[in-house]
């Protein structure tokens, strides 16, 4: 990992040095993942906003998903080398706080994207309200099953606020509407393999599961693979997703997925960098920017696809 971090440091230095010549404002963007399908949409939004605002975007991802120490190191490098503003998607809400405090103390605005920072003030927090959206997901999921039918919930990482809020929101809304339904959990750290294996284990040992709800669409696709591995057909066990990722929407068109709460992922990156660029110029930015969500069902999937540009 040492090697990765050193490369990241060199890359940051090189990009900052070359940008000094072009005299653009430099905005640092510390992302959570460069390979997750959802994150690639956020990153695309960030890149487009930077191009529009005419700022130089220095985009750095962690060496692997969940690597806090490389995020902290990149943060320090960006501060030391004169970034005008920093947008960050923390892998650990509390862990990133000291670095955020240092930057804010040095007068560099920090915009948190997707995941909040606990224990430090930020200039702006740009995200979907995960808890509120998850409550919608839970309420919609409840309408798909009878009271008393057991379901599976595939969790996200429970050490992160995003994972906690999505689970809490879902559980509260679902349990309120279907108090007699048992909810079995498949714990994951945002890994579709864990989702697939856990769902397969439970579906194989019980015949009465009516639905698999997921904290993110990697889980939805893992759960779909588990169903296929056990010879289920589309609709035998209902799937409910979260994120509105392209492959999950395609699976909805094939009859596998029955509801999906889509975050406006592109908007999250786009508005995050817009806010960071505005703050870099010294303009006032709203402290909380809610990027909203869209409930995708078989009836609304056409509208959603047109909106986010999925053919």
């Amino acid at each position, binding site marked *: 990992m040492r*090697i*990765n971090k050193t490369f990241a440091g060199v890359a940051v230095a090189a990009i900052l040095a070359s940008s000094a010549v072009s005299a653009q404002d430099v905005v640092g963007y510390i992302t959570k993942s*460069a*390979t*997750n*399908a959802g994150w*690639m949409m956020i990153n695309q939004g960030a890149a487009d906003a930077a191009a529009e605002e005419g700022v130089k975007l220095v985009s750095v991802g962690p060496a*692997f*998903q969940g690597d806090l120490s490389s995020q902290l190191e990149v943060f320090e490098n960006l501060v030391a080398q004169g970034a005008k503003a920093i947008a960050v998607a923390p892998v650990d809400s509390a862990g990133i706080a000291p670095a955020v405090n240092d930057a804010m103390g040095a007068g560099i605005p920090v915009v948190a994207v997707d995941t909040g920072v606990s224990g430090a003030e930020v200039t702006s927090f740009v995200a979907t309200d995960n808890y509120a959206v998850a409550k919608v997901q839970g309420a919609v999921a409840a309408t798909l099953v009878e009271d008393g039918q057991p379901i599976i919930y595939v*969790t996200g990482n*429970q*050490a992160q606020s995003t994972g906690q809020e999505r689970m809490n929101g879902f559980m509260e809304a679902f349990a309120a509407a279907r108090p007699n339904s048992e909810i*079995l*959990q*498949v*714990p994951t750290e945002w*890994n*579709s*393999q*864990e989702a*697939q*294996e*856990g769902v*397969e*284990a*439970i579906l*194989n*040992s*019980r*015949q009465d599961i009516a639905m698999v709800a997921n904290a993110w669409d990697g889980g939805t*696709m*893992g759960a*779909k*693979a588990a169903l*296929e*591995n*056990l*010879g289920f057909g589309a609709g035998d066990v209902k799937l409910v997703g979260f994120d509105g990722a392209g*492959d999950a929407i395609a699976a909805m068109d094939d009859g596998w997925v029955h509801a999906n709460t889509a975050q406006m992922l592109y908007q999250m990156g786009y508005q995050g960098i817009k806010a960071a660029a505005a703050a870099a110029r010294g303009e006032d930015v709203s402290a909380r920017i809610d990027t909203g969500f869209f409930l995708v069902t078989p009836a609304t999937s056409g509208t959603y696809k047109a909106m986010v540009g999925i053919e």
Partner: protein
Amino acid sequence: MTDVSNTHTTATLQDRIVLGLVKFFRAEWSGAFLAILILGIAIELATTGRPFFHPSNLMTILNNSAAIGIVAGGMTLVIITAGIDLSVGSVMGMTAALTGYVASFWGFPPYLAIMTGLSIGLAIGAFNGSLVAYFGMPAFIVTLAGLSIWRGTGHLSTGAQATPKLPETFDYFGRYNPFAGLRDAYREGTLSGVWERFGAFVDDNWINFFRTFQMSMLIFISFFVILTIIIANTRYGRWVYAIGSNEPGARQAGINTPRYTMITYMFCSFSAALGALLFLGRAPYAKSDYGQMWELDAIAAVVIGGTSLFGGRGSLWGTFMGVILLKLINNGLTLAQLDTFWQMVVTGLIILVAVGLDIVRQSKDPESVRKLLGALAAVMAFLALMTPGAIFLRAKIALLEHNAATSLREAGETLAAGQNARLLSPDEIVQLQNAASSNLVAMILLLALVLAACSVVLRTSRINSFVLAAVFVVMIAPVTIMGYQITAPFLVLGGASLLGSAYVHALFARARALDVNAH
């Protein structure tokens, strides 16, 4: 001499059991096997519904072990040569992504895509192997660099995008069920005679047995059978062990050690590529972030299976058991619906126990075996203790935190949100005080049991072990009355292991005597 033949012809049942035990513990896979058995029984007791040892559940575990299992099989050979390959996870991810990529976007027919994937595996192995064998670079460094290089290459070449669903040919490496066609034909009514009866049998037992009888599992088992035969019966197999136990010696004996080291690394990367194909056979799509941390899981499986990280000693069946143990932990803890964070802790503890079993297995000292069994009893008593103990501690800590937050507020500090959340209502305080006091007696009883078991670990007589084993069993009655039935399996297991510990010395003495006679 007459004496020897006598012992053999008139071998008592007891002696045969002793010999059987000795033979069992000489096998490298016995540690992992025991851990699987103990864990399986524990999960069986903790879960309701379909039994854990149900064939269909065991086959699910085998199906999901297949991909990582084949990767670990290749890793076993590398580790036996005293090497290491940290790049297998990245190689698996890259070959999975590229195989899917050329099949989806370049229009390669599936067999050609599969050949491409396997060739990439071989080529990477040749690269790693030649750096290690011919340029004398440390395997750890070469493959650590590979971990980064191949992951990055995989992301770069596929844009880190998922492919669409792969062609059905890939199912033959994974979810394809050899009985599915027969069942379909039966349901359509196109069978007759014996086939019809067989079809009816398959259909009747579909959910209970045949549904999970899939290619993943069949390939996984065949791979280990074939590889074991190769290693046991070829010069290559013997030389792998020779290189691992004494490389300069092997070279002086005329073995072309660089060549065989390189072949071993090539085989390891090839296994990673084959593992990728098995993974694709069960996965939703191909993507370059597959296989993250697999190098660690593979190494863990190899070590749990009794293979030495220093080379020269180890077995493929041990690795087979090690992989199954790792997957069984995930599967069982998910079925038991254990809390996420506890799953992490328990997973680590089980790995420690498995490796501990293996170390004790190798030791020739009866005293250390006795101590391990005593320690196992102490751990069981501790687990029983934690049932009332956790409630007691949680209540006490909540009250303490409430008091701390109250006194901070009284001192005029402004409280943070997290501190305010620690303040309790009067009702909650009464509830917690009740919880603490009602769990106190059970906790003290079980704490005494833990301490007694710990003292037995240090020093004991046979009588003490018997008495304490009896106390373990007797203890079930009072704690059950207090409402902690769940501790009963722990106490039974603890009692059994103490009972076993009382016989360890006798067992070793008898085994030695039999051994001396036999030779």
